[in-house]
């Protein structure tokens, strides 16, 4: 691949700090290496505590890294500090599992989607409102949602609003942590279709974390399986699914309907 990858991670180690006199903890992520090609989706699966969220938090620079390198869009991402870091973070949009927890119930949808833009110093006004209406439309919500409140939304609608907000600063990379796990299969299908459309229309790159291998196998180009902090499998999705190297991956694949 000649183009710069969206994300290039080399031998990343993340370790939480124990108490002052407590013994050192095991690393939450133990030497992860992988890359995310621009415009592609990388799926990350693994059991609870395997290090998925820690990995995402490190990519967001919300967690210190013990060693290793992260290059985002060609830049040495760990070297950025202060204002430069804050500005560069705009390249990343974030969507989390529980749409309701991440949206303040009393704010209107317009206020919620405006939040990141206002935080970056953009001016409130008709132009912003028009942009928000456009984002909502891209996420399958009609303009009359602008003045509704988050507490009146269904789970699927709330997740659409969260996606619209994540897109508001026009990020190149989207980080999604269990974005459909709290939703019914009928709504999950709508959200997965929406993400596929956005990937296509905006050329988004995505990091998609979930427990559900079948969900991530469907939409990802490459697949990474984590277990207890280790990357146990990484490759093109079709290949991992066709010939899983790990018993753990096979177990996940064989659960349920055949």
């Amino acid at each position: 691949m000649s183009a710069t990858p969206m994300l290039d991670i080399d031998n990343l180690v993340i370790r939480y700090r124990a108490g002052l006199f407590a013994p050192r903890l095991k690393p939450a992520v133990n030497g992860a290496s992988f890359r995310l090609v621009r415009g592609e989706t990388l799926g990350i699966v693994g059991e609870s505590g395997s290090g998925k969220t820690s990995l995402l938090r490190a990519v967001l620079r919300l967690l210190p890294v013990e060693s290793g390198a992260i290059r985002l869009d060609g830049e040495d991402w760990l070297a950025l500090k202060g204002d430069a870091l804050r500005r560069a973070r705009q390249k990343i949009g974030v969507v989390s599992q529980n749409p309701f927890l991440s949206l303040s119930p009393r704010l209107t949808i317009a206020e919620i989607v405006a939040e990141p833009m206002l935080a970056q110093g953009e001016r409130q006004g008709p132009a912003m409102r028009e942009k928000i209406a456009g984002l909502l439309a891209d996420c399958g919500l009609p303009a009359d949602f602008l003045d509704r409140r988050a507490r009146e939304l269904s789970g699927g609608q709330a997740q659409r609003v969260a996606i619209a907000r994540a897109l508001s600063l026009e990020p190149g990379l989207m980080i999604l942590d269990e974005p459909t796990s709290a939703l019914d299969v009928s709504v999950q299908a709508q959200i997965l279709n929406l993400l596929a459309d956005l990937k296509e229309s905006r050329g988004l790159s995505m990091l998609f974390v979930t427990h559900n291998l079948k969900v991530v196998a469907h939409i990802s180009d490459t697949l990474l399986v984590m277990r207890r902090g280790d990357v146990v499998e990484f490759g093109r999705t079709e290949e991992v699914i066709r010939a899983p190297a790990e018993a753990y991956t096979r177990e996940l694949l064989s659960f349920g309907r055949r």
Partner: protein
Amino acid sequence: MPLIDIRDLSVSIPTPDGDVHAVRSVSLEIERGEIHGVIGESGCGKTMTGMAVLGLVPKGARITAERFHFDGEDLREKAQSLRGRHIGLISQDPAAALNPVLSIARQMDDVIRAHRDLPRKARRAEAASLLAATGLPDPERVLKSYPHQLSGGMQQRVVIAQALATGADFLIADEPTTALDVSVGAQVLALLRRLVAERGLTVLMITHDMDVIAEACDRATVLYAGRSVETGPVEAVLNRPGHPYTRALLAALPDAAPHGARLAAIEGSIPPPRSAIAGCAFAPRCPQAMPVCAAEPPPERVRGTHRWLCHLPEDAA
């Protein structure tokens, strides 16, 4: 005689904005020794059906039914006394079901003491043996632990052990694996299957996950808008579904489409729980709806023990 025999159950909850029809018409027959799955989208009435069997409906709720029987006894009169003695609950959130400030030993003992007249030492031995029966590797260590020291999978096994301690032979498991990992969830389902085989338990398994139905259940009933719309052996319901709603749920799953292809999302949403429904509740979303569908209640289609409600002729399914 089936252990659970429910015919045309409805549960309505009065609220300031009008009655919520949480359950409109559910029929359910569960044989002894069977794991019976109940599936449907969120808000379809799965939990409320389970709560009605447990006698735990909200205050003021109205229950009507043509038949509402557990082991031949009318649940409208007996649910309170059957709960805990014959009917146990395993809920979605094991952490919430356990008291965070009491040791597991104390919480197991409370349950055993309430149901069995045994001396202290025998109760402790019983607690350890019940925990061992749920596959917990070191029951003595678990007994000394507090809930936060156990993983979600271990907590769920403790909750199952508590249900067994009551002597209940019918368990209602409401999304028992939703809060767990796929692999831990699979272990809990395998445990329930083993307990059914070894102890002759019967289980009502509430879930919105078709994979859980496939993995654990013998028969399944599909709920839509508070109505049971299809019931049958799991193999038939999943592989030869009769009802268009069941077909739509299965088609929406990510592994139903080729890699990367668009998924068959079901447009629209379930009808509001306060609305009146004349014909088939699925009509506004059904790709095969006909004029008669919105007007008249659909007839029952029968293929052996596989039954569903639909205006489409049986051979169209």
